[in-house]
C-alpha cells in the first residue's frame, strides 16, 4: 500500500441478480480472486489478483460475470502513458527487470493487414476447390538446382532429405516445461492427425511422445537440454535454435521450481536446478561454426533428416539468412518481433527485432538474387493469425508458416499474458497438476484439428480465387499481392506494388 499501491488493472463485475453462488468461479480461479462470504451470503472478489484470463467468465453457468478494464486512471498524458508510469512504480519497488509473456502488445504495424490479395475476373478463370483438385501439400528441404542423369541417361531421383506437410503450417517450438504435458499431448496428436509437424522446443522430448516422432521436430538450443542420441533420431527434422522473435539476442531461464519430476528427467538436469539457456551457443561464433554444428548433427543422424536453423528477425536478416543458406542447413526459420514467448524481459520483447513481413520479403529477395533460394526452404513465424496471413506469407516467398499463439488460442488460451506466473487457469502454461488436468487432450487436439482444417479450406478458397491450384505456384508470387496505405520504401522492401497499380 501507500507509495507502492497500484490500483487493480481489472474489475470483476458480478451481476448479483444472476449469480446463484455456485462457486464455480472460486474453484476455477488459481489466482484466488473469488470467494464466498458466508456472512453476506454472496460471492465477493479481490480484483488485485485478477489477470483477466476469463476462466470464470467462460465457466459461469448464468453469465453473471464479466471482467472489465478499470477506469481508475492517472491524469492523461501522451508522453507518460498510464502503463509507462506504472512500470516505473513496479521497478522502483522491485529493483528488477520487467517480465512479460506472449507476443508484444505494442502497436507495431501489422503488414499482413496492409496487404490485399488478388482474385481472377473475366480474363482468367478462378477455380472452385469443391469441384477441382487443389494441392496444399508442401515439402521442405534443399532442392536440387539441376537435373542429374546417371551413366545410363536416366534421371537420378536422389533428393536431400525432405519433410512433407499436408498444408504449409507447422506448430512452432514450445518446450515441455513452458507448456504442460497435456498441451504437448494435444499438439502432438493434432500434428499426427493433420499430417503436419510440431516442435519440441528446448526442453527435450517426453518419453510418452516418442511415438509421434514422424510428426516431431526436435530442437537443439543453446542450453542443449534433453539432447541425446535417441532424441536426435526421434524426429523428422532437427532444429538449431539460435534466436527467438520475442527475445532476440538473449537466452532463456526456466526457474528451478518448475524443474520437477518428468521435466527434470526430460531436460536431463537435477530437480530444482535452474535451466539456464545461454544467450549464444558457446560453440557458434561464425557461419563456419554453425556449419560445424549443422554437419555434426547431420553426421549423428546419418544425413537422413533435414536440419532447420531458426533465427530471430533482426536488422541484417537477409545477410544472416544468406550465411545460413550456405552453412549446409536445409531449412531456415525466421521469427518476427511480434512472436510469442513463455517469459521474456518486457523491454527486449517490445523493442528488439523487426516485423516478420519485412524480414521475409528481404530474405526471399536476397536468396533469389544470390541464386541460392533453392538451397533452403523458408519457414516464417511471429504472429501468423489466420489463413490469409499464411497465404500472404507464401506469396511473399515463404514455404510454410510456424504458428504458436494461434494454436494456444485454439487450446483455450485467452492471451492474458501471465504465463510467467505458472498459474495458467487454462492448463496450458503451468505444471501444477490441478491446473494441467483442465486441458483434456481429447478436446485440445480436436480443436487444433478443427482450426487447421478450417484454415486449409480457406487457403484453398483463396488460391482458387486467384486461379492457382497448387500452393507451390503461389510461393513468391508477389504479383498476387498489393499494398494499401504503405510508403514507397515499405512497398520496395516488400517487393509489391500499391493497390491500383
Amino acid at each position, binding site marked *: 500500500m501507500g507509495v507502492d499501491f497500484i490500483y487493480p488493472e481489472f474489475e470483476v463485475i458480478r451481476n448479483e441478480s444472476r449469480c*446463484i453462488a*455456485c462457486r*464455480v468461479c472460486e*474453484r*476455477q480461479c488459481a489466482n484466488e480472486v473469488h470467494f464466498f462470504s458466508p456472512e453476506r451470503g454472496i460471492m465477493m472478489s479481490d480484483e488485485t489478483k485478477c489477470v483477466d484470463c476469463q476462466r470464470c467468465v467462460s*465457466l459461469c*453457468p448464468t453469465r453473471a460475470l464479466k471482467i472489465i478494464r478499470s477506469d481508475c486512471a492517472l491524469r492523461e498524458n501522451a508522453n507518460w502513458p498510464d502503463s509507462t508510469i506504472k512500470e516505473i512504480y513496479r521497478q522502483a519497488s522491485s529493483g528488477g527487470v520487467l517480465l512479460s509473456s506472449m507476443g508484444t502488445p505494442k502497436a507495431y504495424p501489422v503488414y499482413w493487414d496492409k496487404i490485399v490479395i488478388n482474385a481472377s475476373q473475366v480474363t482468367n478463370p478462378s477455380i472452385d476447390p469443391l469441384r477441382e483438385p487443389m494441392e496444399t501439400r508442401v515439402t521442405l528441404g534443399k532442392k536440387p538446382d539441376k537435373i542429374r542423369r546417371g551413366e545410363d541417361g536416366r534421371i537420378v531421383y536422389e533428393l536431400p532429405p525432405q519433410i512433407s506437410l499436408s498444408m504449409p503450417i507447422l506448430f512452432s517450438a514450445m518446450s515441455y516445461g513452458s507448456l504442460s504435458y497435456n498441451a504437448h499431448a494435444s499438439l502432438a496428436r493434432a500434428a499426427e492427425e493433420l499430417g503436419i509437424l510440431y516442435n519440441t522446443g528446448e526442453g527435450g522430448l517426453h518419453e510418452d511422445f516418442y511415438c509421434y516422432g514422424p510428426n516431431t521436430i526436435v530442437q537443439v538450443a543453446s542450453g542443449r537440454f534433453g539432447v541425446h542420441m535417441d532424441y536426435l533420431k526421434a524426429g523428422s527434422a532437427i532444429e538449431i535454435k539460435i534466436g527467438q522473435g520475442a527475445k532476440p539476442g538473449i537466452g532463456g531461464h526456466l526457474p528451478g521450481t518448475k524443474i520437477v519430476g518428468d521435466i527434470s528427467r526430460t531436460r536431463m538436469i537435477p530437480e530444482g536446478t535452474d535451466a539456464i539457456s545461454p544467450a549464444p551457443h558457446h560453440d557458434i561464433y561464425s557461419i563456419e561454426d554453425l556449419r560445424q554444428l549443422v554437419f555434426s548433427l547431420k553426421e549423428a543422424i546419418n544425413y537422413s533428416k533435414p536440419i532447420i536453423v531458426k533465427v530471430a528477425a533482426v536488422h541484417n536478416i537477409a545477410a544472416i539468412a544468406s550465411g545460413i543458406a550456405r552453412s549446409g542447413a536445409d531449412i531456415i526459420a525466421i521469427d518476427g518481433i511480434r512472436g510469442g514467448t513463455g517469459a521474456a524481459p518486457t523491454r527486449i520483447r517490445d523493442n528488439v527485432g523487426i516485423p516478420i513481413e519485412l524480414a521475409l520479403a528481404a530474405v526471399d529477395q536476397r536468396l533469389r538474387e544470390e541464386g541460392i533460394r533453392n538451397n533452403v526452404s523458408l519457414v516464417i513465424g511471429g504472429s501468423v493469425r489466420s489463413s490469409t496471413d499464411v497465404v500472404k506469407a507464401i506469396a511473399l516467398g515463404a514455404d510454410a508458416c510456424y504458428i504458436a499463439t494461434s494454436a494456444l488460442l485454439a487450446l483455450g488460451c485467452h492471451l492474458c499474458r501471465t504465463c510467467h506466473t505458472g498459474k495458467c487457469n487454462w492448463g496450458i502454461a503451468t505444471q501444477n497438476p490441478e491446473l494441467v488436468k483442465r486441458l*483434456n487432450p*481429447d*478436446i485440445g487436439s480436436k480443436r487444433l484439428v478443427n482450426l487447421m482444417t478450417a484454415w486449409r479450406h480457406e487457403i484453398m478458397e483463396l488460391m482458387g480465387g486467384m486461379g492457382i491450384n497448387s500452393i507451390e505456384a503461389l510461393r513468391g508470387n508477389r504479383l498476387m499481392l498489393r499494398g494499401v496505405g504503405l510508403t514507397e520504401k515499405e512497398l520496395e522492401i516488400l517487393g509489391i506494388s500499391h493497390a491500383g497499380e
Partner: protein
Amino acid sequence: MKRVYVDEQWCLGCHLCEYNCAFANSGLPDMVLALKGKPIYPRIHIEGHDKITYAVSCRHCEDPICVKSCIAGAISKDGEVVKIDRSRCVSCYTCILVCPYGALTPDENGVMQKCELCLENACGEPACVKGCPNRAIIYEERGEA
C-alpha cells in the same frame, strides 16, 4: 445400454454437473429462477477430496438392489433405465442404505430422487454430460454392466 461414465482424470471438481442437474430437473426455464438463493438437490454428486474428484450418479445396474429393496414398489426398471415413481415413495430410505454407490438422495421434502438420464425432463440428454467443461462425464455405450 448408454450409461453416464466418469473419467476422474479429467474431473475438475467444479461442481457444474450438480447445478446443471438441479436446473434440468427443476422444470423451470431459466437457471437463475431455478437455483438462485436456494439449496440445490442434484441427482449427481461430486465426491473426493482436494486432489481427486469425480461425479457419482446412478449406475443403472443390471440387477438393481434398490428395486428389490424398495418397500413401496416405487423404484422399477423401465427397459434398462432404473426409474422412481416419486408419488409412491414413503421416505423409508431403505434405498439409501442398500445402494453401493450412494446414488439415491432425498429432495427438499425428503422424497427420494435419482438420475433418470434426463430422459423425462426437457433436457433430453444428460445435462451433466452436456455441461461438463472438460468432458469428464461421458454418455456412451460401453457394453459392460
